[in-house]
Each structure stands twice: as structure tokens, then as C-alpha cells.
């Protein structure tokens, strides 16, 4: 089977397992075991190809331009890891079948398990560092899901989250480190990186790169100061712990250290960081492990300690130490996996993991007891077991190290001390629970587990024994193959014998044994009696608490940051936009300035100055009154608008003036109608302005003056210039001959830039639809529904000709008779004016837009004077249909050009000779203009109706207010 298929197999298996029904316990377990076993067999068969430094490669194109190949690379070291991952995976899968409750929906468990296995194999088989990071983060993700498998338990949720955050952060650091490595080496390919030792060490980016990579490795391997997540991860089901924390997840960190050892090691920085973290983890975790009362937590701390040992070995910058590290990786995986499984068996059969409650279990579960005893002896480093061999190698490395004198002194001390602690916690795990009188108050009646639940432990313990007794025979070849790529080049001389003679390391082992037994005898009663519940001294320096606090602090900090750097108030947001404009414009003008142009000025006339003075005064008045006197502000705004209209007319822009006039009328009327529903002023809320208020107002005034003044200056600068490269002469010269009209503005709207017009009528339509949709759901507040104050002051018995428009069938009575008659008379006249404006539009001021507005104004007048009910009893304006028809007509007119082979919106002018009238130009744009006309009427009326229906709806049941929508 090719490597790629082998890599894909667990993922495929994962998907298949996920699709099984939730109660398919046996199928899922068998399937998982089969997949893992297939991997073991296949990898096993590949050993001859990698044993003498051979490397298997397979690569696929992914993003070659960026140096990202999907490349699979297996050398001896990767092979060893792949075997550990799939081998222990197989055993754990068998074990999990019996461990998990029959009620548990295990297919999900096995699916995640296989996916995690695949991700782990992806890490060790990566031939590209980015690809390694890719799988690295996947292991974080799947371990998160596995640790949180019993998600209904709060400890599982917390443990999973902590593991994800810590290892995920480390993964991102590693990502950054690898990117830097890529910059240094010029490639992300593992082979290229492994061949660039000199370049890497001499590069100025080496220290930051190294620190980032190490952060990734140390978080993953739960090394000091990131060790705290591992004990919390014990909330996972025990098979997960057995897998993740013996052979896989945490080993990924040391895998990376060993993988990059040939190129990153051999520097001072490496020595201090790696050795330091390793030594502290080794010692402190072993110390903490002694005081644990939970079997799994004890093992968790022991795992940290053993990983510290491996890290320490890798940090020593010695090839022999690196070999020892590789050896201990293998040994630790075997005994730790079996210990976790044994802990699981005890938990499963007795119902507790509390060492204080467990006693004398050997009587009821002798086989499990024996297995656990042997495995913990291996963990403690008892001779004739595999743990002893690698521990001896470690001791001798610490003794024969040449470094600073105090380091040479401290390291063997730390090693021996950690050895003592290891013996203590190994005794607590084994002796303490298996011997003595049998406990009586256990939740369950203890007995031996199912046969197949024990088999995986038996196999692993057997391996511990075999390796311990005949190391060279059993693992010599594998260790050579695995260690060769780590040291790079040639293997140092080392011997795998059980007995090296009575030397310093052996003496240290003896001291550790003796000290450990003494320590246990001293400590056990204290812990057993419950007098010592916490870890002395170390309890105060709790990384976990620090982690929790910093997460909470991060949350608080970010919330504060968002509050300070952001705002939810509209006023501030608008202020920022204006200030941004000001700053941007001023910054852009720097160095250039803004000068007035030399276009000849039109001399000012008194009338014009007067006109503008009125306009300016009204505009300022509108701004002043806008807050509390909306009606007055609106009136003044209308006057300012009229002044603008007059200005347009003054400067010979009749089209603009006409359009502006109509727009002013419509918008002012709609505004007035909307005014009715705005919230009222609350007099009590008005307070005397404080100094702060005044300062704020002063600031706003300054910004307003600057923005207004700046805009005025820019306008003046623009208006006093002649645009030298302007495209406008083209429009003047082509409007009649090719656009078929003498009114250039109109030709521009319906021909030159008809796409703009199409867009603008779409905007109108969209706004009208949006307004209608919003107002249909709008329920006015109670105080707006009541009759206005002016009407309420009338005494009830007063005889008046005021009619209530909400109840009267015809409001055109009494004082409203005259306007009603007038407005009804205006309607046909307005229609005629609209037709006139429309027809002459192409050659004279006018056009579809203005014509539509005129019709709309006439209809609005009907609504205003006669009331909504009266109008709608007599006609249904169907504004929505007007909009649809207008848009469709405009589009279809434009599309008509396609039939003649021209692009969309190309116009065509037919020259028709009519009797009596003579020759007439009929441009196709006139149809387009009809579309504009219809859309404008529809949009305006729809907004009007949306507003008008408010007053009807306010007194009726909401459900009946459907009419008139179209």
C-alpha cells in the first residue's frame, strides 16, 4: 500500500465509523482495530526500506508556487513513531471496546479516535513543515473533541478547552516559527531544512525562530511552564488518556524537537531553553505526582515528568543523549500506555480512582495487579525492565556532561531527586492499592476484567519485559534505524546491555530506589489519612489558575478595549466620518495647497447676494431648530431648497431648477407627513448644560465650521477653474445629431448615461419598497396616536366645522371645501402639464422624471385634502405596479437594441413624416423615459401611501391594514 493511502486510511475509517448507528459498538470497535492493525502491518513491512537511513517519499502538487507540496516522507524515526501510533492505537481500540459503557454512543468516539490517529500520523510523515503544522493543528482539534467526549461533564468541557487553547496557541507559535524558518532557508521542505544547518545558525532570525518553534513543542508536550493542561485533560475517557498521553499527542512535541534536532540544536539558546524546561518539568512534575490521590492524575504528572526527561536529553546537545531520548520515547510509550489502561481497569471494576480508598486489590484481581506492578516498576526504573535502560542512559548523560560547573553539579542531582520521586509515585500506584487489607467500601464489587480488556495490557507489559531483558536483541535494530535520522549522519557508539558494571549511574539508581522506598514510607500515611490534601509549596504556583485568570483578564481587557476604541452611539460614528474626511483632505493637501483658479468671475449682483443671504440664514436656522422645533426646521430647509432652485435658474440651468423644485415639494410634503410619528420632546429630560456639555458643543461647532469651511473652499477652488480636459464638449456637440434632442441634460439622462438613470430609478423603487416594508410593521407609540394637543383643548360641546379625517367618509366639508375643490380641479390640469413636460423633455426643459413628480404631487394633494379613505374608495393607485412596469419598460427598451445587434441601451431615432405635423423625430429613448416616469410615480406614491396608512391603521385592527399595497 502506498504511503498516501496509508495516511488516508484512518481518515477514511473515521468517516465510515461516524456513519455507523449509535449502538453499533462491536462494529465500530472491530472496524477501528482493523484499520489500526492494517496500518501496523503495512508500516511493519516497510521497515527494511528505512532501516539503513533509507527514506521513503511520495509527494503531490498542492500549491507549488508557495513552496507547499503535499509530501509524505518516512525515515526510520518517522517509522518508529508511525509504528507506535498505529500499534498502541490498535491495542487501545481493543481496550476501549470493553472500557466504554454499552450505553455509550461509541461510533462517534471511534470516529474521532481514528481521525486523531490520522492527524498524528500526518505529523510524523510530513515531508513539508507547513504540512506538519497543518496536521499539528488537526491533532489539537481532535484532541479537544476527544477530551471533551463526555461533554455533559463540566470537567471535560474545561479540560478540553484548556488543552485546545494551550496547544492551539503553541501551534500558532510553531506556525510563525516555521514561516520564519522558511524565510531563512528559502524552502519549507523538510529535506531542504535539514540540509541547511549552517545557514540557520548564522541567521539573525535564528533566536526568534527557535523560541517560536520551541513554544510549539513545549506546549504540546506539556512542558514547564505549560504543563498545567495535561492533568486537566484527564477528564477524557481513559482509553483517550492512554492513547494521547502515552504515545501520541504529547509525544508530538518531543517528536518535533527530535525531528529538527540536527539543525536547531547545538546552540546555547537551545541548551538553556530546552534543558531548562525539561529539567524543571522532570523534577516538579515528579514531585507533584507523589501527592496525587487520583490514579490518572498521578499518571498525568508522571507523564509530564517523563517527557521532561526526554526534553532534557534532547536539550543536552549531545548525540548520545539524543539516542537515549529516542529510546525513552519508545519505552515510555509502552509502560505508560499499559499503566493508563490498568488505571482504567481498576476504575472500571471498582468504581473509583482514589488511591486512598483502594487497598488490597491484589487478592481480587491478581493478574491486573501483576501487570500493574511490572509496568510501574518499569516506570520507576527497576532493573530488567525497559524503563531502567533508558533511565540509566539518562543518568550517565547527566553525569558525563561537560558544561558550566554548577550545571554539571545540578543535573545529576536533579536526575537522582526525580528518580527518588519516581519510585515514590510508582509505589503509590502499585503497592499502595494492591496490598494491605482489601477495601470494603468500594462502589462496585471488584473482580478481574473481561479477558480482552486485559490483553492489550499484557502485550505491552510483555514488551517492557522483553526489552528490559534482551534490549539489543529485541529493539536494537529499530532503535538504530530511529535514532540515525535524529542525530543526522552517523550514530554514536552506544551499548544496549543490561549490565554496565557498577558505575555512577547505577549508584544513582540505587540511591533513587532506596530514597524512594524511604520517601514512600514517610509520605504514605500522611496522604492516606487525608492530612495532606494539597501539593506542598507548589500548590501556590498554579499554572492553571494563572491560565484561567489570564483568559478572564483577556476577556475583560478586550471588552474594555472595544468600549474605548469603539462606540455604539450614532453621533460619535458620524463625527468620526466627518473628522476622517477633514483629516484625509487636509493631509492630502499638504505640500500642494489649494489655490483659486483663473476662470473669469461673474460679478455679484445685489439681488443674488440677498437671495443667498436668505438661503444661508434659513440653512443655519434649520440646523439650530432641528432638535426641538422640527416643523420650523423643515420649513426653513424648504426655503433653503427654494433658494437653490432659484440659483439654478439664475445660472441658466432650467432643467435642474425644475427638477429641484418638484423634488423639494415632494420631499417636504413627505417629511411633514412623517413628522406626525416622530417621538415627542420630553421636557423633563432637558437639563442645564454642564461644562462638559459646553466643551462638547464647542468641539462639534469647531468641526462643523472646519468641515463646512473646507468644503466651501474646495468648491470655490473647483468652480474657479476651467476643466481643461473635460468630456463635456462632446455631449454638447453630439446631443442633437446622434442623441436626437436639443436638451443636452435630458439626452444625457436617457441616452449618454442612461445606465445611471436606470440605476437611479431602481434606487427610487428600492427605497420605496423598503419604506413600505418597514412602515407596514410600524406601530406608532400611544402618545402619537392620540389627537394632537391643539385638538384636545377644544371643549366637547363646541360646534365646529373641524372634521375628524379618520372617521368622516368625506373630509371635503366645512373649511376644507375650497381646497378640496381646487385640488380636484388641479388633477387633470396637472396631468396635462405632466404630458407637456414629458413630451417636450427631449428638446426643452422637462422629461419623464419631472413629469412623474408632477403627477405624484397632484395625487398627494388628493390624499392630503380629501383623506386616504376617500381617495382609495374612488381609485386604487397600485403604486407597486407602476414601479414594476417602469423598471421593466426601461430594461426592455434597453434590451431592444440587442435585436439590432447593438449593445444594451443603444438608442435609435425614427424619423417619421406625419400628415399635417410634418417630420417628427421619435427616439427610442422616449420609451425609456416613460419607464422613468412610471417608476417615479410609483415610488413616490408608495411612500406616500405607506405614511398615509399609518393614521388609518392606528385606529383599526392591524390585520385589516393590508389594502393599497398592491
Amino acid at each position, binding site marked *: 500500500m502506498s504511503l498516501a493511502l496509508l495516511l488516508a486510511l484512518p481518515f477514511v475509517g473515521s468517516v465510515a465509523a461516524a456513519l455507523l448507528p449509535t449502538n453499533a459498538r462491536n462494529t465500530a470497535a472491530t472496524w477501528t482495530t482493523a484499520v489500526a492493525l492494517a496500518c501496523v502491518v503495512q508500516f511493519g513491512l516497510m521497515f527494511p526500506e528505512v532501516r539503513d537511513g533509507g527514506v521513503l517519499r511520495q509527494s503531490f*502538487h498542492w*500549491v507549488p*508556487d508557495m513552496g*507547499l507540496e503535499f509530501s509524505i516522507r518516512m525515515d526510520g524515526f518517522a517509522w518508529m513513531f508511525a509504528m507506535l501510533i498505529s500499534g498502541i492505537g490498535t491495542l487501545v481500540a481493543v481496550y476501549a471496546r470493553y472500557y*466504554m*459503557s454499552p*450505553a455509550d454512543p461509541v461510533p*462517534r468516539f471511534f470516529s474521532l479516535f481514528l481521525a486523531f490517529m490520522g492527524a498524528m500520523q500526518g505529523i510524523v510523515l510530513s515531508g513539508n513543515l507547513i504540512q506538519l503544522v497543518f496536521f499539528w493543528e*488537526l491533532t489539537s482539534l481532535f484532541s*479537544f473533541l476527544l477530551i471533551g467526549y463526555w*461533554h*455533559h*461533564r*463540566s470537567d*471535560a468541557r474545561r479540560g478540553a478547552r484548556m488543552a*485546545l487553547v494551550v496547544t*492551539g496557541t503553541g501551534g500558532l507559535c510553531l506556525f510563525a516559527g516555521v*514561516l520564519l524558518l522558511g524565510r531563512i532557508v528559502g524552502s519549507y521542505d523538510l529535506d531542504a531544512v535539514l540540509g541547511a544547518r549552517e545557514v540557520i545558525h548564522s541567521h539573525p532570525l535564528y533566536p526568534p525562530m527557535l523560541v517560536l518553534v520551541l513554544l510549539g513543542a513545549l506546549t504540546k508536550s506539556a512542558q514547564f511552564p505549560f504543563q498545567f493542561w495535561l492533568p486537566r485533560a*484527564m477528564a477524557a475517557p481513559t482509553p483517550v488518556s492512554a492513547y494521547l498521553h502515552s504515545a501520541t499527542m504529547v509525544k508530538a512535541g518531543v517528536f518535533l524537537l527530535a525531528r529538527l534536532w540536527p539543525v536547531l540544536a547545538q546552540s546555547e539558546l537551545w541548551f538553556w531553553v530546552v534543558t531548562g524546561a525539561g529539567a524543571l518539568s522532570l523534577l516538579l512534575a515528579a514531585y507533584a505526582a507523589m501527592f496525587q*490521590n487520583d490514579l490518572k492524575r498521578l499518571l498525568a504528572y508522571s507523564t509530564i515528568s517523563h517527557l521532561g526527561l526526554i526534553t532534557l536529553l534532547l536539550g543536552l546537545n549531545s548525540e548520545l543523549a539524543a539516542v537515549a531520548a529516542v529510546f525513552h520515547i519508545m519505552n515510555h510509550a509502552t509502560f505508560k500506555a499499559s499503566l493508563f489502561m490498568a488505571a482504567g481497569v481498576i476504575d472500571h471494576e471498582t468504581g473509583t480512582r482514589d488511591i486512598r480508598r483502594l487497598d488490597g486489590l491484589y487478592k481480587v484481581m491478581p493478574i491486573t495487579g501483576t501487570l500493574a506492578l511490572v509496568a510501574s516498576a518499569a516506570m520507576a526504573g527497576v532493573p530488567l525492565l525497559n524503563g531502567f535502560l533508558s533511565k540509566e542512559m539518562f543518568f550517565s548523560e547527566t553525569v558525563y556532561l561537560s558544561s558550566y560547573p554548577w550545571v554539571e553539579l545540578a543535573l545529576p542531582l536533579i536526575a537522582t531527586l526525580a528518580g527518588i520521586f519516581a519510585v515514590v509515585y510508582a509505589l503509590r500506584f502499585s503497592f499502595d492499592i494492591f496490598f494491605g487489607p482489601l477495601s470494603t467500601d468500594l462502589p462496585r464489587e471488584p473482580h478481574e476484567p473481561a479477558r480482552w480488556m486485559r490483553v492489550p495490557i499484557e502485550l505491552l507489559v510483555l514488551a517492557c519485559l522483553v526489552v528490559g531483558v534482551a534490549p539489543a536483541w529485541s529493539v536494537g535494530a529499530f532503535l538504530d534505524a530511529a535514532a540515525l535520522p535524529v542525530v543526522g549522519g552517523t550514530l554514536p557508539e552506544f551499548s544496549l546491555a543490561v549490565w554496565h558494571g557498577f558505575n555512577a549511574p547505577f549508584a544513582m539508581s540505587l540511591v533513587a530506589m532506596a530514597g524512594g522506598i524511604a520517601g514512600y514510607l514517610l509520605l504514605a500515611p500522611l496522604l492516606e489519612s487525608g492530612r495532606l490534601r494539597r501539593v506542598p509549596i507548589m500548590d501556590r504556583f498554579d499554572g492553571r489558575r494563572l491560565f484561567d485568570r489570564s483568559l478572564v483578564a*483577556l476577556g475583560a481587557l478586550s471588552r474594555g478595549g*472595544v468600549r474605548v476604541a469603539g*462606540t*455604539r452611539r*450614532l453621533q460619535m*460614528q*458620524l463625527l468620526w*466620518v466627518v473628522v476622517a474626511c477633514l483629516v484625509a*483632505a487636509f493631509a*492630502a*493637501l499638504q505640500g500642494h495647497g489649494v489655490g483659486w483658479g483663473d476662470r473669469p468671475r461673474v460679478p455679484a449682483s445685489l439681488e443674488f447676494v440677498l437671495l443667498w443671504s436668505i438661503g444661508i440664514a434659513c440653512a443655519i436656522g434649520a440646523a439650530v431648530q432641528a432638535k426641538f422645533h422640527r416643523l420650523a426646521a423643515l420649513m426653513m430647509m424648504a426655503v433653503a431648497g427654494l433658494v437653490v432652485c432659484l440659483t439654478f435658474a439664475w445660472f441658466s440651468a432650467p432643467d435642474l431648477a425644475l427638477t429641484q423644485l418638484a423634488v423639494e415639494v415632494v420631499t417636504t410634503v413627505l417629511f411633514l407627513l412623517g413628522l406626525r410619528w416622530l417621538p415627542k420632546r420630553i421636557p423633563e429630560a432637558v437639563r442645564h448644560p454642564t461644562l462638559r456639555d459646553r466643551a462638547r458643543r464647542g468641539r462639534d461647532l469647531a468641526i462643523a465650521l472646519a468641515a463646512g469651511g473646507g*468644503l466651501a473652499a*474646495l468648491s470655490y*477652488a*473647483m468652480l474657479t477653474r476651467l*476643466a481643461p*480636459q473635460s*468630456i463635456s464638449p*462632446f455631449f454638447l456637440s*453630439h446631443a442633437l445629431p*446622434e442623441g436626437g434632442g436639443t436638451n443636452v441634460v435630458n439626452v444625457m439622462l436617457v*441616452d*449618454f*448615461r442612461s445606465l445611471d438613470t436606470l440605476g437611479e430609478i431602481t434606487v427610487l423603487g428600492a*427605497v420605496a419598497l423598503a419604506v413600505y*416594508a*418597514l412602515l407596514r*410593521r410600524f406601530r406608532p407609540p400611544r402618545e402619537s396616536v392620540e389627537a394632537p394637543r391643539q385638538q384636545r383643548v377644544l371643549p366637547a360641546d363646541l360646534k365646529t366645522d373641524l372634521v375628524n379625517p379618520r372617521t368622516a367618509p368625506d373630509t371635503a366639508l366645512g373649511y376644507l371645501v375650497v381646497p378640496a375643490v381646487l385640488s380636484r380641479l388641479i388633477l387633470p390640469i396637472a396631468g396635462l402639464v405632466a404630458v407637456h413636460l414629458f413630451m417636450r423633455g427631449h428638446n426643452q426643459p422637462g422629461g419623464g422624471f419631472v413629469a412623474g413628480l408632477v403627477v405624484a404631487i397632484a395625487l398627494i394633494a388628493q390624499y392630503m385634502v380629501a383623506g386616504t379613505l376617500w381617495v382609495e374608495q374612488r381609485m386604487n393607485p397600485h403604486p407597486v405596479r407602476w*414601479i*414594476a412596469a417602469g*423598471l421593466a419598460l426601461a*430594461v426592455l427598451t434597453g*434590451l431592444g*437594441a440587442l435585436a439590432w445587434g*447593438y449593445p*444594451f441601451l*443603444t438608442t435609435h*431615432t425614427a*424619423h417619421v413624416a406625419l400628415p399635417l405635423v410634418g417630420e417628427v423625430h421619435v427616439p427610442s429613448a422616449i420609451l425609456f423615459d416613460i419607464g422613468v416616469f412610471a417608476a417615479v410615480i410609483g415610488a413616490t406614491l408608495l411612500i406616500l401611501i405607506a405614511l398615509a396608512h399609518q393614521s388609518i391603521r392606528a385606529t383599526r385592527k392591524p390585520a385589516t391594514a393590508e389594502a393599497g*399595497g398592491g
Partner: protein
Amino acid sequence: MIGWLGQGMPHLIAAPILLPLFAAALMVAMGERRRAGRALVNVLASLLGLAVAVALLVWVDGEGVPGVYLAGNWPVPFGIALVVDRLSALMLVLAGVLGAAAVLYSTARWDRAGVHFHPLFQLQLMGLNGAFLTADLFNLFVFFEVMLAASYGLLLHGSGTARVRAGLHYIAINLLASSVFLIGVSMLYGVTGTLNMADMAQKLAAVPASDRGLLNAAVAILSVAFLAKAAMWPLGFWLAPAYAAASAPAAALFAIMTKVGIYAVLRVWTLFFAGGDDASAAFGSGMLVVGGLATLAFGALGVMASQRLGRLAGFSIVVSSGTLLAATGLGLPALTGGALYYLASTTLAVGAFYLLIELVERARAVNVDAPEPDDDTDHLPFALELVELPQDVNLDDDEHALVGKVFPAAIVFLGIAFIGCALLIAGLPPLSGFVAKFGMLSALLNPGGLGDLGATPVPVAGWVLVALLIGSGLVATISLARAGIRYFWAPQDRPAPRLRVVECLPIAALLFACAALTVRAEPVLRYAQDTALALHRPSVYIDAVMSARPVTQPSWRPEASAKEGGT
């Protein structure tokens, strides 16, 4: 394929604008009561629009040069030209994909939450497509307005206090930004005398020194309008509340609206300043970079601070905006290429996320009656973690059984989709978010190419961007993990929510698209790189536009007074 496309080609460029407009007119005419018919028209039009967009992308990638369509058959620069180049085609496809997904989703229930949802939806698509296609600055304004007008309606769709409040803020700010846009356009017209962007880019060199100040001010003011749309700090505070308040399909479509601002910046800025070596070269790039970095940092803060998923998604849009702005400002073609890939990935991801949020909250609302934590109040999400657990054996306070719980199928789907979205937003493997981030980071750290061995120094802003990109990924991981735990793991024994296939399908499709982006990263990145190269060599675009000629008079209609080419 190319040849077949070439048949309908010149007119196909206008189709992304006309199709939605016509569909909208049709749906308006159909009236409110034929809701099913309207939904059908909307779905069909969206799918057809997507097909057209894909066809345009295939065509433009095959041709290699932009396609130009002269609306009204008037010569450049007097009429309005529509141009489809690689960037436009990419944006069209993204809008099409999001549109199709959102409209399908809306047919499950949202389209009944108010009137005129369907026509407004198509009008929004028309505005988006028009903005991506037009080569005329004023026409760009018009399409911005179409897009915004429709978006006002869509944002308010479904009503309710939160929507109206956020919606009115949104409208007010966008109206102001539109006025600013108009001021900028008119000043540019005053200085250059033209509105066609290609023509304008050509004429910039000829602007006399006395007008340079005005020109720069015009561009600066215009950019404020674009950047407000792109939600740059401090102009983008409207985004998170508005998008969080919008209904799910509207919010999903809005995921591409901030990208319109980015698109406009990319288009105008590269056209005007990337090619030339005149006095205004690289004008304002520092501003873009600093602003982008500030936006990125602010967005990351917001992501960390957010507890409600809607706001979290909104801030993640801010993060992506900041990233894109800073990447644009740095002006490295390889980086721009990575950023465009990122743009595609993040837009689809956030779109899917918005659709998902509604379903997740619905699942939660089945029996959880606890009030939603408001982000204004200082609610500590995991204060419980500070409570010391007994260092005893059973780590769970409530001694819950060591037996797993079965997830109902609906929750499984939501959970997987949530993980997918979270990975995409945080930029973690295996989905396209990781490839996108890697693409940008690699380009940032190797400005001279990967084999350059670091000979080209990385600018300080580049280092800051690297740090912020990685940091924002971390923050997103933490925040999304927190949210995921709270929504999926913490609730106990709740009944499964009822999901409909039309709601799940769009989410699955969007996530599938992101997976496809990962697997087919090479062709997509190649396309993005080509796009970036063309952007940094604006002469391609300018030449294509300036050399476009109107259709001359067909010989079989001698009386037609069609326009002659040129002036």
C-alpha cells in the same frame, strides 16, 4: 467552452445587472400574494446569475484580457463602460454563490417575515454586480446606491426593535458616506474632466501641478467613503450591530458588502497609483496600511469580547477587512494574490456562519430561557473557572455519569458546520482559511519570493501584520471554542431543533466550496496571482477600456442613425 461563451459574450457582461433587475421587476409585478412564485423566480434568477458569473469567470480567465461592454454604444470615455476582468469576475462569482445560498435558505421561513423580501434581494444583487462591473466612477456611485437602498430594506426585513435601531444607524452613516462619495467624485470630475476610471487614470499624469492638491484631496475624500463601506477603524463601528441584527439570509449576503469597499479601494487605488511613477505614486499607501492594521487589531479585540455569535461574526468581518486593507496598502503583488484568495475564503465562510448562527440559536432557544448576555454588560463568560475545584478524585462537581450522550442528527450537522466555520474564520487547518493565511504570511515574509533567502527586508508594517494575523487567529480560536462549548456542549438533554433541508443545504454547499478551495488551492491561487499581477499593472485594464470601440452601423439598416465610433 470559451468559443461557445464567446458567442453571447459582449452582451453577457451586462447580464449580471439586467437579470436581477428584470427578475425584481417581475416579482414586484407579481404582487405579495404569489409568494411561492416569487420565491421560485428569486431562486431561479439567483442560480442563473451564478451561472452567468461563472461563465464570465471562465471566459475572462481564458481570454486573459478584460472584456469591455459599451452601454448605449457610446465611445469611451463619453458613455458608460462595463468591464469584466479577473477581479470583477471573482467578485461576481462570490456574490452569486452567497446570493444563491442565502436565497435558498430564506425560502424556509425568512421570506415570510415581511413584504418585498424577494425583489429587494435581487436589487441588492444587482447593485453588487453593477459595482463590480462598472468602469465609470459616477456609475459606481449609482450602483453603490442601488446596493445600499436595497440593503436598507433587507436589514430592516423582519422588523423588531434591534433591527430598526441598528438599521437606522446603518442608514444614517451610509447616507453620510454616500454624500462624501459624491463630493469626491465631483471633485475628481472637476480636476480630470472625465468619469471613466481608465481614462481618469491616464489623465492623472497630465493634471497640472496647481491642481495636484485638489486631486489628492478628491482621492482622499473618495477613499473615506470607500473605507467607511469597508468598515475601516474608526469608520466601521456600525458593522457589528447592524449585521448582528439582520435576518440570517440578509446578513449572509451582507458578508460581501464590506468587500465592495475593499473592491473599490483595490480597483481605484491600483488603477490610479500602482502603475505610474508620477508625483502621486503610492499615494496614501501608508494610510491604508496603518488603518488596516488598526482595523485588524480592533476587530480582534471585538472577536475576543463578543459573546453573541452574531457580533462575533461581525467582528470577524472587521478582521478580514483590516487584513485586506493592510495587504492592499503594502502593495506587493504576491501578497495581494494571497489576500484575494483570503477574500474568497473569508467571504464564503462568514456567509455560511451567518446562516448557521440562526439555526444554532434556534436550537438553543428550544428550552434555554436564560437571557442572552448583552455585550454591553460586563458579563464574564467563564467566571466559574475561577471557582476552585476540589483537588479530589471525581473532578466533576455534579458527578455526571461516565457515559457519553447521543447527539441528535440535527445537532451533529450544526456542530460539524460550526467547527467548519470556526476553522475557516480562525484560519486553522484543514479548510481554506489556513491556506489563505499561509499564502499571505508566506508572501509577507518573503517579499522577494521564497528562494530569495531573505535578501529583501520585510517592512516593519509587514512584521506587525504577521503578528496581528497570527494573533487574530488565536483570539478567534479562543472565542469560538468558548462559544462552541457554550452552545453545543453545555446544554443538557434538549430536544433536537427542527431543521429543513433548504436551510442546511446552503450551509453545506458554502463549506464544501471552502473545502474545494483548499483542495484546488493551486488553480485558485494561480487565478488570484494573475488577478493581483493585472491589478499592479493597470495598463492592461486601461488599454482594454480605451481601445474599446462602439458597434458601427449595420449595413442592412441604412436609415438608422446609430453612432459612429470615436469622436
